[in-house]
């Protein structure tokens, strides 16, 4: 036990140890200073730029109050030229202007440089307008978007399952009910007919017996002592018993004509199993109905999404137009670059035909917007 003391002391000490009183601990003079979080980054930043003589304000004012301008920022390396430019762009961005920082051109040959600038402008424009179509591109928004997509997916599955279940139940219930109603009516009619026929037979037999002999005034039993008399008595008694039996049967048939409680062999059709056995194609009807319901649901969701997309496009028609225009413009630049470098000489026929199509798109798709 002695050996385990340090371990147990450590384990229990974690729970038993009191939090030290911070006021009693002597304070380190360095640590007691306000907590600092230094930032030694040397990168250009608009937020950390320190103005010397309101130069950022001056440039921004010029941009605000002139239809066009070209401003140069000169200075020694490390003086903050890029930071000043970023500060100006940040301010302009807050005002809703289209801003773009082109950090490093790919080449300094004038034509390439010009193409690079406009390629960057078009790409940036697509990025900015594309957020409307594709959503935000920052990590949080992307993660939330994906999470929302999953949520929508499982909610759609749950909802569609529930709706399918409801629709299936309603459909099958309706179908089964209507089928049952029709079939029960037929069976009841058939059964009523059968019982009526049977009753008519019984009634005719009763009538025959009544006409054959008056059963209402039978002779006394003492008078029938001879053979004929006995024989006659025997026939009469048989008729009488038959008559009584027919009367009971008549009464029974009349009772059954009004009885649907399910008792008796003629009521067997009222059992659901019997009806299900009599309709084996019912499963197929149910599955078909479910498939139709699912397809309908998918179509409804698709139509609603398309409608929301359509409304988005209608609300932001200019931005969407710009998005597609810039995409066409990038194609145009690619085409121009390819022409300039002569890369199409080595293309196969299929790719060449693709290039022709692309060129055609450029001519028919881009210029109507620009001209």
């Amino acid at each position: 036990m002695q050996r385990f003391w340090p371990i147990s002391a450590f384990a229990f000490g974690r729970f038993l140890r009191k939090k030290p009183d911070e006021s009693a601990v002597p304070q380190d003079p360095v640590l007691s200073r306000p907590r600092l979080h230094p930032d030694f980054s040397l990168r250009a930043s608009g937020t950390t730029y320190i103005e010397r003589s309101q130069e950022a304000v001056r440039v921004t004012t010029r941009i605000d109050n002139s239809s066009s301008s070209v401003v140069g920022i000169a200075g020694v390396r490390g003086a903050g030229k890029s930071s000043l430019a970023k500060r100006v762009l940040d301010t302009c961005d807050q005002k809703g202007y289209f801003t773009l920082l082109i950090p490093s051109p790919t080449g300094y040959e004038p034509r390439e440089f010009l193409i690079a600038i406009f390629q960057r402008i078009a790409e940036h424009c697509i990025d900015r307008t594309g957020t409307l179509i594709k959503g935000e591109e920052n990590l949080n928004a992307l993660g939330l978007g994906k999470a929302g997509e999953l949520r929508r997916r499982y909610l759609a599955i749950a909802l569609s399952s529930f709706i399918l279940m409801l629709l299936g139940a309603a459909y099958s219930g309706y179908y089964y009910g209507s089928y049952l109603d029709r079939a029960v009516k037929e069976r009841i009619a058939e059964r009523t007919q059968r019982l009526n026929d049977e009753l008519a037979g019984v009634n005719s037999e009763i009538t025959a017996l009544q006409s054959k002999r008056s059963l209402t005034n039978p002779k006394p039993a003492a008078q029938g002592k001879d053979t004929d008399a006995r024989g006659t008595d025997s026939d009469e008694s048989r008729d009488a018993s038959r008559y009584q039996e027919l009367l009971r049967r008549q009464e029974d048939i009349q009772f059954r004509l009004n009885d649907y409680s399910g008792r008796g062999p003629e009521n067997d059709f009222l059992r659901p199993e019997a009806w299900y056995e009599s309709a084996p194609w019912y499963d197929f009807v149910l599955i078909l109905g479910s498939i139709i319901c699912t397809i309908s649901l998918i179509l409804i969701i698709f139509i609603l999404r398309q409608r929301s997309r359509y409304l988005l496009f209608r609300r932001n028609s200019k931005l969407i137009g710009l998005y597609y225009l810039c995409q066409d413009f990038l194609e145009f630049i690619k085409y121009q670059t390819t022409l300039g470098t002569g890369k199409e000489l080595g293309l196969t026929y299929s790719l060449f035909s693709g290039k022709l199509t692309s060129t055609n798109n450029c001519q028919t798709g881009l210029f109507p917007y620009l001209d």
Partner: protein
Amino acid sequence: MTATCTKLLQNIAEVYANKVVVCIDELDKITSIDQLTELLKGVKGILGQENTHFILTISEDAMSKFTERLSSDRNLIESSFEEIVYLDRVDRQTGMHIVRQSLTAMDVVWGEEFERACLLFWIFGAGVPREIKRFVFSCFSSGIDVYDGQSFSVWKLIYLDMLQSMIKGTSQAKTDDAEAQYNFLLCIESLIKLVEGTSTSSQFRSVVTLIKSTIEKYEGNESRDSHQNSSDNVGVVPFQYQSQFVEILIGAIAFGVATGKIVKQSGQITDHLDTLIYAYKFVPINSRYARFTLQQFAKKALGRLVV
């Protein structure tokens, strides 16, 4: 092509509040004046279009070369840019602001020691924000507390770093310059030993005098070696390491700031110390003029500033 691009810009401007602001950064990487001229001629077609605003960053060297060239090139600049914002080296207050911003200590009031450390960062950084931040980080990573009376440590660290970088940054000399380079390296090594032996109790005048005499000794050797046949050898001798010596002398003067030997006198300190930054500014352009400025500073300012 340009017409199509211009149309695109107009379409973009129509969507975004009628303003397209494009900044082309890092044009200052182009040191060749001819290349920059060609580039400006090439892109001039898209500059100044309706609703478009361009901001271009240009190196100070290129700008100064432009102004020195023929009027046709100057016209190109003048016609291309409506306004040119020159970002000069920052003053003492802005330098201190940058240090405090780097340390995220904007709301904290610090004492004279901290201000002295900020002065050192500003002087050694030559008023260039990026250099100031770099020196602040050097001190931070070396564990030097810039708040509590460690200005001398700040000075020593930065000064030694500067001297050692001069040795490390020296490229292989040509055959005819080998001896001059050898002497220069010897000079720097002796200066490093001298600085390492300096303490807070060292006299400002003696430190400056020692450093100055070491340099002059080297300059004397250089003078004799390269101008032994010259009969008109007067004053300061121009040579390839002149700019480094100006920086070394400025660093020596900064010792006075670090030890508090240079004190404020009726608000004139700012003007005088700005002369140091002015000297720094001319080091890459004309090191002889920078040396001259430094001499003027020593004559006019140090006499009054040294206690």
